[in-house]
């Protein structure tokens, strides 16, 4: 075989390219590189056009006074940031944002974990329960909010139910604290199913033998939960808490439909305030300044949580 081939090579005419040093430009390797760039092109261009450029513009706009109705656009240096520091409404807005986020994250993660633990027991029909707890996730957000708004009316379903057991319910959406609690609760029931499912998947990955060994060693259920379950599912706790914290800062539709930021400004969270300033009062420059603030808050919270993983997330690899 080998001799045959050598003979053929000898017989073949000299290579047309002569020197033989130039290989074809489109090698398999180059073609693969090109494919890589083409595959990511839409996502990359989209990220630049619809994420990075707008983010840069937000910073740029925040140094301008821009009233869309009056058609005025002029550089004002750091005036918007001074206005931000002096804004009498801002402390209330930040307090409402913190109240909402803390309430939502604590209730959501706590309830999600509790439901996941309950559903992780050997129980017939737990898939039916799982489906029902998850079902609000697929109900349109505004539809869900509307029916809760209806239930929370002074003469609505919740107070009617309370009345039947002899309790006089408040006008939920008209009290400063009760309206905020209402918005939080409506949102928790809407989306807790997502975190519940993530926790459930994590719980099913905890080896049963660990519990059995701990039981033999005399650990009670609470101790087993704190010493085995929590450390082993801590990566999921981290992930869900990042998703939930960032999600809590994005709440808008529920506020717009249920309370319009009221009563007073008690439920005016940052995104809702941003919307009002930019799209109701047409202060685009100040709206952009509030966007910068929102961005910084999200960034700081995410970085802090990511750093915390080193401390308490088990088996970080």
């Amino acid at each position, binding site marked *: 075989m080998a001799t045959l081939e050598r003979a053929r090579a000898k017989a073949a005419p000299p290579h047309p390219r002569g020197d033989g040093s130039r290989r074809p430009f489109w090698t398999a390797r180059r073609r693969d590189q090109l494919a890589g760039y083409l595959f990511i092109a839409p996502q990359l261009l989209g990220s630049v056009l619809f994420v990075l450029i707008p983010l840069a513009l937000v910073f740029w706009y925040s140094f301008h006074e821009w009233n869309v109705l009056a058609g005025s656009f002029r550089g004002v240096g750091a005036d918007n940031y001074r206005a931000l520091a002096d804004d009498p409404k801002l402390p209330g807005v930040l307090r409402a944002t913190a109240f909402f986020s803390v309430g939502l994250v604590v209730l959501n993660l706590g309830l999600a974990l509790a439901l996941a633990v309950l559903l992780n027991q050997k129980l017939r029909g737990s898939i039916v329960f799982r489906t*029902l707890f998850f079902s609000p996730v697929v109900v349109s957000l505004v539809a869900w909010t509307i029916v809760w708004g209806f239930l929370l009316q002074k003469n609505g379903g919740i107070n009617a139910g309370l009345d039947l057991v002899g309790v006089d319910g408040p006008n939920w959406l008209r009290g400063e604290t009760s309206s905020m609690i209402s918005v939080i609760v409506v949102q928790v029931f809407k989306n807790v199913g997502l975190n519940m499912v993530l926790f459930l998947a994590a719980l099913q990955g905890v080896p049963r033998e660990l519990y059995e060994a701990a039981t033999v060693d005399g650990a009670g259920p609470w101790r087993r939960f704190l010493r085995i379950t929590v450390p082993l599912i801590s990566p999921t706790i981290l992930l869900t808490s990042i998703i939930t914290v960032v999600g809590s800062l994005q709440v808008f539709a529920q506020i717009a439909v249920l309370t319009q930021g009221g009563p007073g400004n008690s439920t005016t969270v940052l995104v809702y305030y941003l919307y009002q300033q930019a799209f109701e009062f047409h202060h685009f420059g100040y709206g952009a300044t509030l966007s910068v603030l929102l961005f910084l808050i999200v960034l700081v919270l995410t970085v802090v949580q990511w750093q915390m993983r080193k401390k308490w997330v088990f088996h970080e690899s």
Partner: protein
Amino acid sequence: MSHKLPRRVRLVLYGVLLVLLVPFVFPTWWMVTSSLKPASEIFAFPPSLWPENPGFGAYERVFDLQPFAQQYWNSMYIAVVVTIGTLAVSSMAGYAFARIRFRGQNALFLVVLTGLLIPSEVTIVPLFQMFNDWGMTDTHWPLVLVPVLGAPSVLATFIMRQFFITLPAELEEAARMDGLGRFAIYWRIALPLARPALAAVGIFTFLHSWNLYLEPIVYLSTPEKFTLPQALTQFTDAYGGPMWDVQLAAASLTALPVLAVFVFAQRQFVEGLAHTGLK
């Protein structure tokens, strides 16, 4: 553990679960039954769990007061286009980041990932201005282009990448021996294997688009162009108060089809989410 829970513990567990279910299930029940009640019964005391004189009057008014069929179509086609577009964009980008080696790959991946850190609310002001400059306000373009190419699809790309990274390399090598190019490997080998991940991403992309509220009310001003979430809040009386029966009828029409699909495909919804790199 093969042994079952004691009977008493089981009964207590069922009791607790049933009580906890009330706030998850009752609102949907109340939405549908109340939408069938005449206006006189809707705030009746004691409340009726089952409508005494059911009727579809509120449903007729839904279509009289708003171009609701058009709005339904808008939401539906936007969500379908966004879902297909996102699946195409994110599966290609996710595949390339996971399986193709090219120069600058890691840096470009980081550029794309910044989208995860930037909620779309942060960029709504400049995005509005951009689409305004392009003459695209009061059109559906922003509701399609931003989700398919911008921040929302970045999460999809990330999930797809996490999935494709787990595929065994031998599959691709075998395909190369057979002379398949990159696109053919992606299309004929990788994508069919990624069906669970695609299902999960598709479902959540659809729901995200279906639920969008801030963007439609910022971009759209003509009722014929409204999407469903925006349309639901338009059923108000002369004083701006909600017409509850009509709102609840419209809300039921919005929620029930998706709920029905969910009941049939709950396994894909729930388990797809749990096992798609989000762990």
